């Protein structure tokens, strides 16, 4: 059994990566300049929610 499974830059690997990095993790509200959320990568239908506080 290999010590680590290499995440190869295939399309499948990218969907796995993007689903975790963009869809998961703690959401921060409040004093945030930009927050990107709501990206539905399952259907590869990107919806970006830009929350801008102050000048961007």
């Amino acid at each position: 059994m290999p010590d680590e499974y290499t995440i190869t830059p295939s399309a499948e690997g990218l969907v796995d990566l993007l689903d975790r990095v963009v869809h998961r993790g703690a959401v921060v509200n409040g004093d945030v300049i930009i927050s990107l959320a709501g990206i539905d990568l399952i259907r590869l239908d990107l919806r970006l929610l830009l929350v801008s506080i102050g000048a961007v």
Partner: protein
Amino acid sequence: MSVGLCAYAITREHVLAPLSPVGIRLITHRGLGLVVAEVELAPFAALGADPARWTAEPAEDDPLVVLARRHDVVVRAVFEHQPVLPLRFGTILRDEQAAVRLLANHHGEASTWLGRVDGHREWGVRARAAAPGKPAATPTDGLSGTEYLAMRRNRLTAAARTRRDAFTAAEALHEELTRHATECVPRKRKTATPLLDAAYLVPVNAEPAFHDETTRHDELAVEVTGPWPPYSFVRLELSAEEVAHA
């Protein structure tokens, strides 16, 4: 303003490893640290400029992918040395004061969460029915008696397993995997419909047994991804605003 403080993860206060990604630093507060870097806002803002182009499959040179990979690289670099609570991609704070407020507002629950995932790594497992005609498993030569008995501790015999269909095998695989995992979450993939698609939070010392389970079902084609930082197991909503404390 054209720059902001990109926040990648919450971790325990520590000295960053010498080979950490360039520009990364920790803003600390009472034993916790927020992993941050100054970033130009323009690349992030540009992601929203043309959503129509995101109908194709993602490629390595897509702007979103480039930024997402950097996010993952940063989180993993810290994860090599300390438990991490990943923040969602694209979390950019105004300044250091906001970072400290974030840690102060959520010190207790973040500390508790880090303690829970400490010593674990996330693994993704997908299983589909194996292609027809897959040969039966070959005997596992070279195992010691103890290793053999460990593999056979499951109450079902190997002969019974080969008679099960792939669906039942997938259910069994999931049950087996959860015995070695502290936590599991299903992954909602709507394009393909695999028999099993889940993320598992596995203690490092249980990984050999966990991976062993994934190779033992001939009815299944099993794909394992990982190890990942525990992205899929964060369920915190955080605020960097001023909060009146009781």
